[in-house]
């Protein structure tokens, strides 16, 4: 039975999605079912993380085919942490969607697609087979296509075209890389590949395959030359959808990159400098893009791109401390980025727009809410002792120690610009006197019942609590990140656990 336990987050979300489909147009029943499913998923994800933390790497051979012949599901600390973060984000965003997502969208299957998306994400984190990872990626992207286009408004469609085209292209690159890798090794199991790739003499083919993986995952995780689809599509779907996309969809690309780089293509000097170069460019271009935007969600999209640079920097340096910093940053980033988009959704409800030039005076109108939002923003910026601060220490000190001053400069610039942009948002949205008199008709938040208001604000507060925990009890998260970084640098435990030697 311990075997099934590993894939329980996948199974729970799959069953929930199917049941939501079966309930078809009964909106209340679907909402309740979805909430129950996410809660159960969260419970089992916590269980999985604790069990993995206590007893080390868990594996499951699908259909009892011994590795490396069958598909293996592996839950090491990294996978189970990502599954846990996915479940937290899914639970809070699912709760927020109860009110935020209109009935018409629920009737057209918002919740079942939402759960299929979470299922795909959990699967991608738990699989130990490279082709299976491809399949989970496809489940993720097709669900995200539907979520992105659900509603069918013109802006959404225009954003979706770029999103769909780039993601399909990324899949093609990914599949090409798998094809070449299979051709040179004859294996698909990641642990087995780790051994076989290291033994191959024809390094040029290995490097070609590595670069194709890099392009495929790079498009998905939105790194420097490949990110432009993200800011032109993430501002179109509803806030709840944007939150799940912003929090998790780029991170699954980052996860896949960390996994393949640490396990299969242990980076040589060229790969390291390529990763550091993309990190620097991603941070600089993302930061400059964020400075230039007027819509709040467009600003967030560029910040999202900008902060992907931190992960790439950690991966590019590939030392224990740098990886610990990058992994800590993933934990912080998933929680804070989903919260940002939820905050944005509430501001839109109050004002009917998220263009910062049209907004203003929010603090006067809702002083208590503004305090909550202020803490969210400060966590993102990383004012000590809030959550964004701790991982940056590691990254910056490692960059200094490696004498790469350009990288240090870019890291500092990225966090400085984040501060500047957030200050601009704060000044424009919360302090400025609005240019036009407020139209009370536009405030759809005011007319909501108390329970509904609580459901909208509750997730924001919960996520804020988690990021406060990350900031104030940073040593706990640091321990987790440190252990994952250790597992990445010494892969023999992973390989032994999977191949059961």
């Amino acid at each position, binding site marked *: 039975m311990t075997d099934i336990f590993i894939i329980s987050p996948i199974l729970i979300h799959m069953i929930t999605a199917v049941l939501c489909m079966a309930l078809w147009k009964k909106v209340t029943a679907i909402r309740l079912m979805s909430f129950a499913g996410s809660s159960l998923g969260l419970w089992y994800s916590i269980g999985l993380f604790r069990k993995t933390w206590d007893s080390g790497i868990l594996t499951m051979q699908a259909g009892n085919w011994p590795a490396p012949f069958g598909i293996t599901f592996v839950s090491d600390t990294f996978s189970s942490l990502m599954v846990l973060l996915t479940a937290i984000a899914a639970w809070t965003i699912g709760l927020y969607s109860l009110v935020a997502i209109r009935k018409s969208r629920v009737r057209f299957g918002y919740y079942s697609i939402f759960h299929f998306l979470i299922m795909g994400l959990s699967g991608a984190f738990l699989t130990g087979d490279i082709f299976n990872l491809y399949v989970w990626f496809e489940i993720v992207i097709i669900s995200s296509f539907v979520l992105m286009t659900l509603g069918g408004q013109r802006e959404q469609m225009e954003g979706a075209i770029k999103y769909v085209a780039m993601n399909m292209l990324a899949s093609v690159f990914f599949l090409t890389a798998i*094809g070449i890798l299979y051709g040179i090794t004859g294996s698909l199991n990641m642990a087995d590949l780790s051994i076989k790739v290291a033994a191959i003499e024809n390094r040029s083919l290995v490097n070609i395959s590595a670069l194709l993986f890099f392009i495929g995952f790079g498009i998905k995780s939105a790194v420097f030359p490949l990110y432009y689809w993200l800011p032109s599509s993430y501002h179109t779907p509803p806030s709840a959808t944007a939150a799940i996309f912003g929090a998790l969809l780029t991170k699954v690309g980052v996860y896949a990159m960390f996994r393949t780089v640490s396990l299969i293509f242990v980076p040589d000097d060229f790969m390291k400098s390529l990763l550091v170069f993309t990190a620097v460019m991603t941070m600089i271009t993302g930061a400059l893009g964020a400075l230039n935007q007027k819509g709040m969600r467009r600003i967030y999209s560029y910040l999202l791109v900008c902060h992907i640079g931190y992960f790439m920097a950690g991966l590019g340096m590939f030392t224990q401390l740098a990886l610990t910093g990058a992994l800590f940053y993933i934990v912080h980033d998933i929680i804070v980025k989903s919260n940002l988009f939820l905050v944005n959704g509430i501001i839109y409800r109050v004002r009917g727009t998220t263009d910062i030039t049209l907004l203003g005076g929010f603090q006067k109108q809702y002083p208590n809410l503004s305090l909550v939002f202020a803490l969210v923003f400060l966590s993102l910026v990383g004012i000590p002792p809030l959550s964004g601060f701790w991982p940056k220490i590691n990254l910056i000190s490692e960059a200094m120690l490696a004498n790469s001053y350009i990288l240090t400069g870019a890291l500092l610039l990225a966090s400085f610009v984040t501060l500047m942009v957030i200050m601009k948002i704060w000044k424009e949205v919360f302090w400025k006197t609005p240019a036009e008199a407020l139209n009370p008709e536009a405030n759809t938040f005011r007319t909501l019942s108390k329970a509904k208001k609580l459901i909208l604000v509750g997730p924001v507060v919960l996520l804020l609590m988690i990021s406060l925990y990350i900031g104030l009890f940073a040593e706990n998260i640091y321990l987790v990140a440190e252990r994952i970084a250790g597992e990445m640098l010494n892969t023999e435990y992973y390989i032994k656990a999977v191949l059961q030697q």
Partner: protein
Amino acid sequence: MEILLIVLIGLFYAAGIYLMFRRSLVRLLLGLLLLGNGVNLLIFLMGNIAKGKPPIIPEHSNVFTQAYADPVPQSLILTAIVISFGLQSFAIVLLKRVYLLTGTDDLDTLNPLHEKNL
């Protein structure tokens, strides 16, 4: 046979990427279709083409003693074909919808000017 396939894969990739560089949405889609087919052929080729050699281990041994037709690439291709079928049909419907809403299939005219939150 291998040479023929290699040339064909190269053509598929080149034509696919060329078509993706065009501004027209239909060409973009056709480019993606061609690339998808190119990948499938590539996997087929990478799995060693062997004719009339089923992957059955002889009775008196535990391992394969000679070259055999690898069944794994074929199942990979089958999976990839099914997935790309789903994705491509979605993309076709999306293009049709975009064309109905905007009246254009030129990527340059598809730039939303202002943010609208839903």
